[in-house]
């Protein structure tokens, strides 16, 4: 198990990660969601031991992973900059990755380069943005690392390549279960793959739970404005909008069966809220300048 305790990352006076405590049980697919600048990459860099925490601890099965060769061989961290020599050709990059990693599957890497139509003789510097991202996916998945961290690896990939990425990710996870952490802004297209979601906002942990549980917390209530107002009073309202006399309020916190019955009796309609909408509602600033997330703390 990976355990974070009061993990903090500071850059001078800026606090990027602000006291996050989190336990990740192995062999699940996690979705890490946060807005730009929310601290996702800083958090992942510490998890992958690319940097040290300013305060707090990370342990993997009770051991500090920093500068620990055995744990590092089992950790694959794929980020925007790829961490490869850009003058090298693709086949050399893959060959090098295979030498570093005991779990590397060269046959699978070859399969993936075919799937993504990557020219193995091309230099990394000559690849397009999307092709470079695809190379990142190949390096991340073929490593078969017990801890695989993919930080926004889809940049520049078109819809077909992203679909192939999700399909390969799931298929390989089913065949070789391992801990996979995926950070993404394209939440809706990949949310069904997450067993758990982790939402961070301004360096702090907002949500960590099963995707189904998280989804069930959001509900959109629609009906006559006065009836909706009465129904939502005293509940956490993430957003509201009106069309003529009809109002829709997005609630956070889920409804119990009595609430559902009451809504039905009063002629209100209830609808689920997608993971992406829920995320946007939770992390976007309100008109009065306060953050929705404050209501949840």
């Amino acid at each position: 198990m990976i355990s974070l305790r009061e993990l903090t990352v500071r850059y001078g006076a800026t606090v990027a990660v602000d006291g996050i405590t989190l336990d990740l049980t192995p062999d699940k697919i996690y979705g890490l969601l946060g807005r730009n600048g929310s601290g996702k990459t800083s958090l992942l860099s510490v998890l992958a031991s690319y940097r040290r925490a300013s305060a707090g601890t990370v342990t993997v099965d009770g051991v500090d992973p920093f500068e620990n060769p055995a744990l590092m061989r089992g950790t694959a961290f794929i980020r925007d900059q790829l961490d490869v020599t850009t003058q090298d050709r693709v086949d050399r990059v893959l060959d090098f990755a295979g030498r570093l990693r005991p779990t590397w599957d060269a046959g699978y890497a070859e399969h993936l380069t075919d799937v993504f139509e990557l020219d193995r003789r091309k230099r990394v510097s000559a690849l397009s943005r999307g092709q470079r991202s695809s190379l990142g996916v190949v390096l991340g998945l073929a490593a078969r690392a017990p801890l695989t961290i993919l930080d926004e690896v889809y940049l520049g990939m078109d819809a077909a390549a992203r679909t192939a990425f999700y399909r390969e990710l799931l298929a390989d996870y089913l065949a070789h279960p391992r801990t996979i952490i995926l950070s993404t802004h394209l939440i809706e297209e990949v949310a069904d793959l997450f067993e758990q979601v982790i939402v961070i906002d301004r360096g702090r942990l907002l949500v960590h739970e099963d995707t189904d549980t998280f989804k069930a917390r959001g509900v959109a209530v629609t009906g006559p404005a006065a009836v909706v107002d009465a129904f939502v009073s005293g509940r956490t309202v993430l957003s509201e909008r009106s069309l003529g006399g009809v109002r829709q309020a997005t609630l956070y916190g889920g409804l119990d069966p009595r609430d559902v019955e009451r809504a039905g009796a009063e002629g209100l309609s209830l609808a689920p809220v997608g993971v992406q909408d829920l995320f946007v509602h939770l992390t976007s600033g309100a008109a009065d300048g306060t953050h929705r997330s404050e209501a949840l703390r």
Partner: protein
Amino acid sequence: MFDDRSPIYQQIANGIKDDVLSGTLKEDEQVMSTNQYAAFYQINPATAAKGFAQLVDEGVLYKKRGIGMFVSPDARARLRGQRRERFFTDVVDPMLAEARMLGVDVDEIVAYLKEGPR
């Protein structure tokens, strides 16, 4: 693939129930594995497993250790009983409410049911 109105695991469970009711899945027949479901629907296997767990709880499926999930011998009869109970509230009541709204009276409905469309 999914209608987004109810959790995916519930939709998986309901789909299997429908297959049992219609006879597509026979008693003591093995159902697809959670991994097969996950790959087919492109969902996390834990989600599929949750749907299966619900069906085991409800007695629709039973587990053979190390082999997989099978349809319980009495699943079809049990599901029919449950669905029949709900048939009037879930199917007939909404139809009557709609008929009332449109001014279609009960005699007209009865005639339609007995004789088919005119």
